């Protein structure tokens, strides 16, 4: 067996144990990226909201919801990916059930968000063009 020296790794007797640890870290990384995407989207939306409150930009609340919705949808994709990775290493049936419920919630939300984004993009928005926002 090869001994790896990157942080967090301890030598185990089998490949399976190594995979459980590796998938755990991978899941954490993907989950963190998803959370970061949500955080960045929320911060950018707040910035735009403040600009529109101050009258410096003409963003409607629908524009802002669409903008934040895109980030939430992308963050959700990362969360779903981390959930799929988690099912690979979930040790008990109860944990699998909980993961399944979380996946369903996230998938349903993603579906609604995508539908709204498609609908908003299909609508004619002359006001958005005029404001340049």
């Amino acid at each position: 067996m090869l001994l790896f020296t990157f942080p967090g790794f301890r030598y185990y007797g089998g490949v399976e144990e190594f995979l459980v640890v590796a998938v755990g870290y991978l899941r954490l990384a993907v989950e963190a990226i998803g959370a970061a995407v949500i955080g960045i989207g929320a911060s950018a939306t707040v910035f735009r909201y403040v600009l529109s409150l101050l009258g410096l930009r003409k963003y409607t609340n629908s524009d802002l919801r669409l903008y934040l919705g895109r980030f939430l949808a992308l963050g959700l994709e990362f969360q779903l990916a981390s959930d799929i990775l988690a099912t690979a290493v979930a040790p008990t049936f109860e944990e699998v059930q909980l993961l399944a419920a979380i996946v369903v919630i996230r998938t349903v939300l993603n579906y609604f968000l995508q539908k709204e984004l498609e609908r908003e993009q299909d609508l004619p928005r002359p006001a958005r063009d005029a404001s340049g926002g």
Partner: protein
Amino acid sequence: MDLYYVGLDVLRSALLFVGSVVIFIGVAWAVLEALRVGFGPHVPRRMVDNMALGLEFFIGAGLLNLIINPTWTAVQVTALIIVVRKLVTISFNRLERGSGEG
């Protein structure tokens, strides 16, 4: 690892706070408009519009809560937020259609 979850918790709290502020601003603005211009369809429309935006932030907080606290309660709360958001969006679309026809 603790720092990671503390950071997520701070972000979640910030999203809840921002969503609450957005809803409050919408209600306050609608009340001021009603006092200034008089009550009309624009008043509930502004409130619902801001509620819908505030709920988007609540959904973001709910998603982060599912990471921090993956429990059945968190799943139910997030599901309820999604349902409420959908109802608010439907209400807003009806108000928009109503003001367009009226």
